[in-house]
Structures are given as C-alpha cells and as structure tokens.
C-alpha cells in the first residue's frame, strides 16, 4: 500500500509541466542520439549532462533517464531502415528488422512493432522496479565470479540460435570473436595481449567499431551496382498511414509471448552490473527463436524477431537503474554518468536514498511510466518521416551512411584509430557475408568474451583450480543446468516427436 501511495506521489511529480518538458527533451535527444551510428546512451548522457547543472535534481535526473531509454527507441530506427544499428543494443534488431523492411517491404510495421515492444518492455520493467527494486538489488549482490561465468555460458548457448544454416561457420565466427575480445591488457595479470605494440589496442577492441564495420560498412559494400541503381523504392502513401504502422492481428498473436518473455529477460539481465542491454537483447532473441513456433523464420523479417530484442533492451535500461539507485553500484557506462549526475545534485545513491529523498526516487519512477509513453507517441507519429528515408536512392544513402559511420566511429573516443578499426571490421564483415559466415556470433562473443574470461579466471583463483566451484554454488549450478537444457532442448524435442509419431503409427 505504501508503495502505491509513493508511486502516486511520484507520478504527480513527474506530470508537473516542467518535468514533462524535461522528459520530452531528454527523450527526443535520446531518440536522435540513438539513431546516430556510433553514439550510444553514454555519449548522449555525457553530452547533455552540462545542461542539467542548474536544474532541480528531480528534473535533471528525469531528463537524463529520458535520454537513456530514448536511445533504445532510436537505435532501432536505423537498424530497421538502413541495416546499421544505432547503438550496440540494436544490433539484434537488424537481424529481422532490416529484412522485414527490405524483403517484406514492411518498414512501417517493423518500426511500429519495435516501438510497441519497447513500450511494453519498458512498462513491465518499471512495474517490477516499483514493487521489487530492493529485493532484486540484493539478489544481484549475490552474483560472484562463478555466477557471472555461468551467465556467460548461458549467453554463449544462444549462439546456436544465431548460426543460421551452417552451425560450424557460426561456431568459427564465435571463436574468432572470442579471440578479438581478448585483445588488450589482461585484467588479472596486467599483461598486454595481441596488441602488436600499439598503444591504441591496450584498452581492447570496443564493440562499437566492430558493430559499425560488420553490419554497417559490410552491408553497404555488398550492394551491387545493379541493385543500387534499381528502381527507387516507392512508398505508397497508404503504407505509411497510422493503421499500417500498427502490428496486425497476426503480428500480435506471434509477438506478444516473446515480448513478455523479452521484458523479463531484459530486466533481469539489466539488473546485473556489467551485463547490459546488448547481451539481454541477444539472449532474448535467441531464446525467442528456440521457443517460437516460427523459429525457422527468424532472420527473414518476422515481427517476433524485432519484438524479442526491443522489449529486452528497453527493459534492461530500466533494470540497470536498480543497482545504481539502491546500492550505489553503476551497472554500465551510462549509469556511471547518471550516478555522477546524482552526486552532482547532492544525492547519495544507495539504500538510504529511498528513505531520505523519496520524492526524488519516486519522481524518477513516475517519469519512467510517463516518459516511455511520451516517447512512444512521438516515435509513432514521426514514423512516416523516418520511412521517407527509403525514398532516397541507394548510392546517395550509402555515401551519406558511410560518412556518418566514419564520424560516429571517431566520436567513440575522439581517436582516428577507431576509424581504422571500423574499416578493418568492415572488410571482415564483407567477406563473412559473401562466404555465408554469420556475423552475429562474432559480435556476441566479442561482447561476452571479456566478462567470460575474467569471471573464469577469478573463479579458478577462488577455488584454487577446481571446476567444482561452478556446481557447488546453487545459483551458478542452476544457471548452468538451464544452459544445458536450452542446448539439449531442440534435440530432446526432436527425439520426443519421433517417439510419439512411432507410437501413433503403431497404434
């Protein structure tokens, strides 16, 4: 009852005109920043942070939170329209979002599905946040190196869903991605690995240049001149009307289970420090592919493929706020900046924040409800503008996209080296595409690899070299068992179907 009273008070704070304005400004900036390749929520927050200096704390944090989840909406726009993910959390959205646009000519419906799923994911996550924040925060605290290792194993099991027709090529791509993730200084012993004496590689290979190169540059280089000069895409007026943007009954029927599932997965992964929206979206996509009736059609442009990742990444962005607010532990680069902002406002993130400044915390929670709805409405009403991008001829679009990719890669750390890295991955991505090697496992392994290695080695140190540590701890053992079930499930299901068929024939 107290929670509901606090929530109502929070919503009343969030719906004050000035706070709605801050939420709107933050959300729109977040969508635009999210749509720009190479700039993610961290960059958006860092850029807008100075604007919040003179604001009231509640207004300031509402604006910053708006940017954070706004980027999740925005990242899907370029992922669907031009096949270039706006940020790392939108990479999985390209798997079905772009084909739904290019092959099925349903760009508007793809965007509509993405926005609806983001809204549902965000709202579900906020509801869980409202009632269970401190409990979930304590649960997250119980995760040590063995649990993180088990979680990475769970993440790697999703690779089987990303390998496409040739699993061997998928595993090869994943192993290459793992090697790339090990580039840089060894976090345990401080030894530089695979750096070729280059200072720029000491920090390792960032995910962003890899994603921009593998998915962005590789795609635009793969278009033949004949395809590029083909008929301009004609977008009929009727296809960008409001009704066409709504998922139809068939879309809803297939999408709603994976949207709900993605919201839960995204929230749980978002709560864990260091895991984040990117991993959440991949795991959600892969799990949806396994459980969906149309699992074989994933990757061909079906709405479930978009719904699973978009609900997960938006839910993860809300989940990431829990450790920051309740424990004072930032879970990602973006929440580091938000925590810095909190301190700047004179707040002390931690358990006492809920007690000392309930108006601040519940005002933020209230704004999550209001902000998600506002950004959703803005995105839906401007979808027709976004879709018009498709009317631009491919050579012009490719040239401009290349320019944005190059500048986006530079902006990652104001270093020209990142442009070179992006080009390198562009070449790799091009040949991978031509030789039918799936790129998604490489990217997933690049994301998971460093946490995987660090947690494995820390666990081995803790256990003095014994692998039993992963099975002695209940949480870690449970996650490993779940991973084993997910891997064996398709095989067991096939066997079960064969047996039941034989029994039917016999009877």
């Amino acid at each position: 009852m107290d929670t509901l009273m606090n929530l109502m008070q929070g919503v009343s704070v969030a719906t004050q005109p000035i706070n709605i304005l801050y939420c709107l400004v933050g959300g729109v900036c977040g969508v635009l920043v999210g749509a720009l390749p190479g700039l993610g929520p961290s960059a958006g927050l860092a850029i807008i942070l100075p604007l919040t200096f003179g604001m009231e704390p509640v207004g300031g944090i509402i604006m910053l939170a708006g940017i954070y989840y706004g980027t999740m909406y925005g990242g899907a726009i370029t992922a669907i329209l031009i096949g270039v993910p706006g940020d790392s959390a939108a990479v999985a959205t390209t798997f079905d979002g772009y084909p739904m646009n290019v092959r099925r000519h349903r760009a508007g419906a793809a965007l509509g599905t993405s926005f609806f799923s983001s809204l549902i994911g965000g709202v579900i996550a906020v509801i869980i946040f409202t009632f269970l924040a401190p409990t979930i925060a304590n649960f997250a605290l119980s995760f040590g190196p063995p649990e993180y290792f088990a979680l990475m194993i769970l993440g790697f099991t999703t690779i089987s869903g990303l390998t496409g027709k040739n699993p061997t090529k998928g595993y090869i791509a994943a192993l290459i991605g793992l090697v790339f993730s090990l580039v840089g200084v060894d976090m345990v012993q401080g030894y530089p690995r695979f750096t070729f004496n280059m200072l720029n590689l000491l920090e390792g290979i960032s995910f962003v240049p890899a994603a921009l190169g593998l998915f962005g540059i590789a795609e635009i280089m793969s278009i033949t001149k004949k395809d590029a000069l083909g008929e301009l895409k004609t977008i009929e007026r009727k296809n960008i009307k409001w009704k066409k943007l709504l998922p139809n009954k068939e879309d809803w029927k297939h999408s709603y289970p994976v949207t709900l599932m993605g919201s839960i997965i995204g929230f749980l992964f978002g709560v864990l420090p260091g895991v984040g929206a990117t991993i959440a979206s991949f795991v959600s996509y892969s799990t949806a592919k396994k459980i969906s009736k149309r699992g074989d059609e994933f990757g061909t442009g079906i709405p479930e493929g978009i719904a699973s990742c978009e609900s997960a990444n938006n839910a993860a962005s809300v989940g990431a706020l829990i450790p920051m607010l309740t424990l004072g532990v930032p879970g990602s680069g973006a929440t580091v900046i938000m925590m810095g902002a909190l301190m700047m406002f004179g707040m002390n993130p931690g358990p006492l924040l809920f007690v000392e400044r309930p108006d601040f915390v519940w005002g933020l929670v209230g704004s999550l409800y209001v902000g998600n709805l506002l950004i959703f409405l803005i995105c839906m009403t401007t979808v027709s503008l976004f879709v018009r991008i498709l009317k631009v001829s491919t050579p012009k679009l490719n040239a401009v996209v290349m320019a944005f990719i190059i500048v986006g890669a530079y902006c990652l750390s104001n270093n020209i080296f990142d442009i070179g890295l992006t080009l390198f991955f562009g070449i790799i991505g091009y040949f991978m595409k031509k030789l039918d090697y799936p790129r998604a496992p490489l990217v997933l392994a690049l994301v998971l690899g460093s946490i995987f290695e660090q947690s494995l080695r820390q666990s081995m140190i803790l256990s003095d070299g014994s692998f039993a540590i992963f099975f002695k701890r209940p949480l870690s053992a449970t996650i490993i068992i779940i991973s084993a079930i997910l891997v064996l499930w398709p095989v067991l299901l096939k066997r079960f179907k064969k047996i039941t068929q034989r029994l039917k024939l016999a009877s």
Partner: protein
Amino acid sequence: MQKAERIAKCIIIIFAVYTIVESLNMGLGSAGATGSGFVSFGVGSLLFLITVFDLLKSFRIKEKDEESHTIGKTFFNVIIFISCGIFVILATPYLGIIIPIFIIVTILAKLTGISSWKEVIILGIGSAAVIFVIFNVLLKINLPKGFLGI
C-alpha cells in the same frame, strides 16, 4: 565458391595457429593461477580443430556446380569504400574531418552510380554541413579541425 571458402579457412587456421603460439609465449599458468594465455590457448586450439575438420570435410564433398558468388561483382565497392576510409584517416590531421567527409561523399556517390556532378556536389556539401551542425554545434563534440579552421 569452394575455392574462396578453402582460402578463408586456411587464413583462419593460420590465425588460430598464431593465437596458440602467442598464448604459449604468454604462459598458461596453472589451474589455480591461470596465465594470460590460458583462455586464448583454449579458444585458439578449438578454432584450429574445428576449422581443420571443416576444411578436410570440404575436400570430401564434390562440388556439383560452381556456384556463382558476388565477390567479384562487389569487390570494386570494397576498394573504393576502404580507400575513402583510408583517405579520411590520412587527411584528417591536416584538413580536419569535414572536408574529407565532403570529398568522400562526393566520390562515393559518383562512383556508385550518380551521374550528375551537380547532384553529388550538393550531396557532399549537404552531408558535411549536416554532420557539422549535428556533431559540432548541437552535440558539442570536438571534431578535428584542419588548417582552414573547419
């Protein structure tokens, strides 16, 4: 197509061997105190085994028809896009980033199919201007400037 695949697998095998050798140089450590090369050795070994197995398998499968592939048709794109990228890297310290962006957008649009010079130049100027406004003015990101001050 199979020829291209086999070449790719050979390159991956060389990459895997390099990873294994480097990992041994870094040291594997012991079970309780794993070295820097511990995980990379395992990954490199697995990569080597899987790729060699796949390569040997490809020699057993007889290719029915030579599948056409579009590497040749689009390799020109690779050359021009990568060359433009390299040009940006080399020219940015002297010209800033905006001028090279204008140049590469113009060249890419022209070489990939737009015949009108007027169109490509307007596109180049427009793109550079939009990037300048978005990144430099609105987002206040310090893009590198050249001797012309932009």
